[in-house]
């Protein structure tokens, strides 16, 4: 594997995470429990689609085959997508969506904080920009975790169930492989163990404050980063890519 191939993979994974998470959050548009929440979740979706555009455009440049961000978003099949499984799970109820946003935004907050020091100037710039936005996502998700956990018996039961169900999908966020190691050697990629430690400390602290038990199961799901997905990603793509597949090269 060359450095370019490793960097392509790295950008693609980050871009796919942003794209698929954005897609899921946008499904809340006009469906959130209150108007302010509708605005919040769709605003986050917009931040993420912007991040996906930057990262997928850059992945296309690094690959050097002339692909645009749209080519990568709309013209790859399920097995070529490298987002984490946690990004693609269906929204479930509001508690499930918030718990997912909590786990991913806390991870992103610590991850992009570190990526700001990347030796790659594009990734460094994307990280600085993203961090400003992710701060809001993390603060919002944290507040809701405390509110749902400390709310009624019903809200506590639901958010606890969401945390239990999502826990085994959180480990994949910290996985690394050859490509990551290669880029870490030249100070482009983030060193993951410290990110994982910080994530653990913050998550446990908030869950405890919220009266939510921290799951102890250590079995973790894996596969998304290497293109092996849950049954849900194919359904996302069939809707998301419909237009470009039915009318290739359509523009407006």
């Amino acid at each position, binding site marked *: 594997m060359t450095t370019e191939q490793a960097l392509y993979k790295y950008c693609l994974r980050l871009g796919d995470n942003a794209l698929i998470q954005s897609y899921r959050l946008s499904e809340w548009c006009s469906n959130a429990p209150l*108007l*302010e929440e509708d*605005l*919040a979740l769709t*605003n986050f979706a*917009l*931040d*993420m*689609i*912007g*991040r996906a*555009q*930057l990262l997928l455009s850059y992945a296309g440049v690094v690959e050097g085959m002339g692909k645009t961000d749209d080519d990568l978003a709309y013209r790859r099949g399920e097995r070529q997508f490298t987002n984490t499984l946690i990004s693609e799970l269906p929204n479930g109820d509001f508690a499930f969506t918030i718990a997912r946003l909590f786990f991913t935004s806390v991870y992103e907050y610590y991850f992009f904080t570190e990526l700001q020091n990347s030796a790659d*100037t*594009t990734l*460094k*710039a*994307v990280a*600085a*920009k*993203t961090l*400003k*936005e992710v*701060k*809001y996502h993390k*603060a*919002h998700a944290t*507040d809701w975790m405390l509110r749902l956990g400390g709310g009624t018996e019903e809200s506590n039961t639901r958010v606890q169930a969401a945390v239990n169900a999502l826990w085994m999908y959180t480990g994949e966020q910290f996985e690394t492989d050859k490509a990551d190691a290669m880029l870490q050697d030249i100070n482009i990629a983030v060193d993951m163990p410290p990110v994982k430690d910080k994530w653990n400390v913050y998550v446990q602290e908030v869950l405890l404050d919220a009266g939510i038990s921290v799951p102890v199961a250590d079995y973790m799901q894996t596969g998304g980063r290497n293109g092996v997905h849950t049954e849900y990603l194919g359904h996302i793509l069939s809707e998301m890519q419909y237009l470009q597949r039915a009318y290739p090269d359509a523009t407006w």
Partner: protein
Amino acid sequence: MVKTAYSKEDILHILRVIPDPEIPVVNIYEMGMLRDVLLTDEGCEVILTPTYTGCPAMGLIEQDIKMTLNNHHIHNVSVKMVHDPAWTTDWMTDVAKDKLRKYGIAPPLHSSCALDVFGHNIIQCPQCHSGDTVLLSRFGSTACKALYQCNSCREPFEYFKCH
């Protein structure tokens, strides 16, 4: 070779008429988005820094730049998005902040307030200037704004979040 009769300063001046599509009282220079103009043998390159990564107004601004310069017979215009350093509300000019206030939008505090994302900053009502205001919703009609209400004059208003 394309020679233009306009200097870099002329072009920056021409581009100042382009409004922010979502807050038309301020222009792209006042918002701090218009960073530079480079004149080369191939033409004219305009350097922009987007406010938010997903800001849907950027495409429109790019079109407006090309159209405005074409109207001045400046062709071969390209627009380049530069993301480093990242845009900050601190780049907004004082004139822009004043215009926002008159338009009914509370201007952003200094970006250092973002460390405490939804902290206890006092946001002044753009109508009656009272500091007794309350956050209604962290997110508003666009990615860059939050919704507040003034307890003194009861008027709801938008606050441009510091970034």
